[in-house]
């Protein structure tokens, strides 16, 4: 991963195997870290780097979308991703949900004193690769170092700016009764993958996180932009949190078909075992789309032909009954309410 890393560092970072408080102190060591680690990864190739307090950006076509997200995941590396990829994709995906083409990111690092430089470099390389894949530029950043024990290795904040093409308007306000609800893939992979590493749970077969950019998929979906009413990425709180939020903000009811909701076998098994409901488990590369009923099949086909969608499915409909409530029709025909959780899901006793 870091083979092609260009180390043109005035203070050779090899002298420091770990991050020191001085790396955030504003002096030579900090400059060494910035010029030796961050700039080679993020600076625009072929252009001289001019130190400045701000990135100055060209105006773009369309309206601007602006978002921010912070990433505090433990462990930093997990099957299918790491905190660096997550920090890029997370903010990119938030922009994409507004229909925006992601253009620029900022990165704010909070590093724990004693963090291995190798770990930091792996994360930075990962961010560089993810940004290159999406076609977004990391144009500004900041680094702080805190005393050992005051953060968990690396915390990253990214903010993002994107351009929303004219005529694109994805918002709960456009959701109307009769609309179809789709998901772009099977649910719960990220939450279960991270939990399995964090808690040392072992399952048969690898279960990588679904951590991925949704920008390409949304770009493809713009072909049907007029029919797409609302998008949500299904991160914390999973599908349940996203659809409940849509139902409440749009003032509509949403009915989901439990048997239609795609869940991979290892995720379903882990959830059964731990007493978790996969509807509430986090994803990092899945979205829900509310689309005009007549266009549902078209949007589904667009999703099916895009690699970022895995088993896209129509899972429910928007209704004018019981506004603000999400109902799930179970495999036996019974209905139940999908409720907001009080906090995190807790594995049960037996």
């Amino acid at each position, binding site marked *: 991963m870091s083979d092609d890393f260009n180390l043109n560092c005035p203070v050779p970072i090899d002298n420091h195997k770990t991050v020191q408080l001085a790396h955030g102190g504003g002096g030579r060591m900090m400059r060494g870290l910035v010029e030796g680690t961050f700039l080679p990864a993020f600076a625009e190739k072929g252009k001289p780097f001019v130190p400045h307090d701000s990135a100055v950006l060209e105006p773009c076509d369309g309206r601007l979308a602006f978002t921010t997200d912070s990433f505090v995941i433990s462990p930093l590396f997990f099957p299918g991703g790491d905190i660096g990829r997550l920090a890029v994709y997370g903010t990119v995906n938030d922009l994409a949900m507004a229909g925006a083409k992601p253009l620029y990111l900022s990165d704010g690092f909070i590093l724990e004193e004693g963090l291995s430089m190798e770990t930091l470099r792996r994360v930075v390389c990962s961010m560089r690769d993810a940004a290159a894949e999406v076609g977004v530029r990391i144009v500004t950043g900041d680094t702080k170092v805190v005393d050992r024990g005051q953060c968990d290795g690396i915390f990253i904040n990214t903010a993002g700016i994107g351009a929303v093409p004219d005529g694109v308007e994805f918002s709960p306000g456009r959701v109307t009764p009769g609309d179809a609800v789709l998901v772009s893939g099977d649910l719960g992979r990220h939450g279960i993958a991270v939990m399995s590493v964090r808690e040392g749970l072992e399952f048969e077969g690898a279960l990588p996180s679904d951590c991925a950019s949704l920008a390409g998929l949304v770009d493809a979906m713009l072909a049907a932009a007029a029919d797409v009413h609302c998008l949500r990425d299904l991160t914390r709180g999973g599908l349940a949190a996203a659809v409940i939020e849509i139902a409440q903000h749009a003032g509509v009811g949403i009915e989901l078909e439990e048997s239609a909701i795609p869940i991979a076998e290892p995720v379903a098994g882990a959830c059964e075992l731990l007493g978790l409901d996969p509807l509430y488990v986090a994803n990092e590369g899945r979205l829900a789309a509310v689309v005009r009923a007549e266009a549902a099949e078209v949007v589904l086909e667009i999703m099916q032909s895009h690699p970022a969608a895995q088993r896209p499915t129509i899972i429910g409909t928007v209704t004018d009954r019981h506004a603000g409530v999400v109902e799930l029709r*179970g*495999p036996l025909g019974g209905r*139940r*309410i999908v*409720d907001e959780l009080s906090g995190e899901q*807790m*594995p*049960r*006793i037996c």
Partner: protein
Amino acid sequence: MKYIDEYRDAVAAKKLVEAIRSTTTRPWNIMEVCGGQTHAILRFALDEMLPGRITLIHGPGCPVCVTPIEIIDKAIAIASLPEVIFCSFGDMLRVPGSEKDLLTVKSEGGRVRVVYSPMDAVALAGKNPDREVVFFAIGFETTAPANAMAVVQASKLGLDNFSVLVAHVLVPPAIRAVLSSPENLVQGFLAAGHVCTITGIDQYRPIAEEFGVPIVATGFEPLDILQGVLMCVRQLEEGRADVEIQYTRSVRPEGNPAARKTIEEVFEPVPRKWRGIGEIPMSGLALREKYAKYDAAGRFSVEGITADEPAECIAGEVLQGRRKPHECPAFGTRCTPDRPLGAPMVSSEGACAAYYRYRRKCSGRACPACRRK
């Protein structure tokens, strides 16, 4: 998913419901003992599929819900000690004690960890010789063998920094308590399949005989529960009061002798307070004298802590099937999963939490809760 989907099959469920309908000639009240069964009944709306004359009463089989508030207070006192790493299954962290819960202790700097097995706590004790590692041993007969094994293991490894706060409870004395109440409505029981997997069914025979009630050891999937109800209704209609096994893929009449032996080696039956119900004779487990040094309550001198239940909480009546959760005046208003008054609103298996989660909002004819009226 193999071994799950088969037991959620809609066609087979319909057939069982039909069989229950054609067997039933009068009203019957059947109690499902286990919180896991309550959860499945509400999640799959099984109670709505059953004929109106069959009433399911939700029993006291949620170990989180019946743990008395004073044991939670003891756990909180121990977890707050600076030298302690307090390990618990996730469900217990949000259960309110008199003043706070274990999550609050964690936020105040206490070392509170969620573990998935008591053996994780034993391993933690091995890795942290300078700390006291305490495991919150709660649950019915299902979790008792693994918790007993953890104590045996700690003893073998000579881990003097490991101890357990024991709050184990037993099912048969609870069934006896429900049946002995003058207000009892229950005419038949679905016993908890996983408990019977450990204990077998012999302990239930004297109860069935003495009180004249059928008891069916039942599983947790929709078809298990419907078949358990059918077996129970058949007995009721035929005037029989036998102990039967529906959950044959897991329960053997003799149970799991090795697991029972481990429980008996480490624990002995003692009187135990149940949240909302009060003390039930010989309904709990405590460490035997041989393992007394692993008793966290003794080690940290918290035996003296006592506490009263919040007066407004009707958990006792809910846990004995006398009232439904939504019949409580505080339900969904002063008592919610965010601010629970009592434990049945906290645990995912608690009857109040299940009603809150699946049956709360009534805002139109299509709402499942409204249709029940």
